[in-house]
């Protein structure tokens, strides 16, 4: 799966499942500041990713993820 395909799927999850405005979801968007995803929300996001991509994500892997782009790259590396 190409990076842009992963991004589109991630965007779909954010918009459809979490109710985030579509225009806000860019590769550069910061999860907490721009998308208002707090620490509880991150757990939801991880669950959604795990279900969508059929992978498992460890908490440590998320330590450095603060933007949509970083999340997309992490997912891309695991698929």
């Amino acid at each position, binding site marked *: 799966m190409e990076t842009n395909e992963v991004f589109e799927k991630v965007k779909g999850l954010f918009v459809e499942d*979490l*109710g985030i405005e579509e225009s806000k979801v860019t590769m550069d968007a910061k999860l907490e500041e721009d998308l*208002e995803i707090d620490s*509880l929300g991150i*757990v*939801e996001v991880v*669950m959604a990713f795990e279900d969508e991509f059929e992978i498992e994500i460890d908490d440590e892997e998320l330590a450095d993820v603060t933007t949509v782009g970083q999340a997309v790259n992490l997912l891309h590396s695991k698929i």
Partner: protein
Amino acid sequence: MSKRRVVVTGLGTINPLGNNVSDTWNNLINGISGIDYISSFETDGLPVTFAGEVKNFDANEYMGKQHARKLDRSGHLSIYAAEEALKDANIDTEQRLGNGVGIVFGTGIGGIATTEQAVRTYDERGASRINPLAITQLMPNSSTGQVAIKFGIEGPSLTITTACAASANALGEAKNMIQNGIVDMVIAGGTESGTTAMTIGAFAQIRALSTNNENPQKACRPFDKDRDGFVMGEGSTVLVMESEEPAINRGVDIYGYVSGYGASTDAHHITAPAEGGRGAVDAMKKALFDAELTPNDIDYINAHGTSTPANDKNETAAIKTVFSEKAYDVNISSTKSMTGHLLGGGGAFESLVSLLSLKNNIIPPTINLNNPDEECDLNYTPNIPLEKDLSTAMSNSFGFGGHNGVLVFKKS
């Protein structure tokens, strides 16, 4: 030093009769039932298929999906009612209210629907798939915290869970907070959205619910000989309560005074009222004493009147004990006949009804009261509203657990 007087300056509600105060009041005085067949989930196989549901309310539309999905429905209703009440009290909802404002909320069972969903997810998909927002939605203090966050309420906060007396107790404790000079303003109210297949089943197991599935609007018949149980309802009601002087100084309209609060515990049985309504008697007397009134001063009693055989009989007996001969004279009604039982949200809602009755000089009726019961022989304002000059009102709330909360209101 004389006690500080407590006034109500804002009302907000969302309930089976309406999503604002004026629709609610119009339906109340026209004797309209808000009870109908349940539309929010499948009722196949359930012993009861109807309830009082909030209608035409889409939380995603109201607060946006990203916010709405973080709250249980009981929380959606709370924020909605709180916003209505604050606006009604001429308070700027864009500003944080700060640490001079407290919040006291009542609820019977918190986010029970969220609890049930989390259990189902656990059973079907395991622990790692439980909604990470489940705890924050199911805890009974969730609405209190969410309303505080939304409006920046930084003063003392309490969540009261005394079942169907919860929001009566909430208003009473809010009154105490203001009278004791802890804060000048408290956002007080209650919420409940606990109608689920499980709770219907469980309440039906203890024969607490009406099973009149053929005619939901006629099911709740307080004080009627044919009453057969209460009807589940949902909703939230919020009152802005203030110390009189600051309220007058900011020039806001005053609905009335919260002048008396009495609370007691039956310490008798977990569901059944004490014989003769002993605990209810005590709470009513304490509320009158606190208000510095006598039974003869009370013009209207908004009864607990659940439509269960036990409550209505014992509440009647309790009113007779407190009011003596005046019991046959005082106007009583149970607005649960129209809303169903709002459980932890009931006391706040019925306080709103009491204040609106004083303001408008109209007593809403007890609908479906057609066949008098010899054990319920007082003046319950059957089926037709009553126009009458009113100065004072009492609101009774009694809960499973034996909790009793009674409030007395005076016209401003």
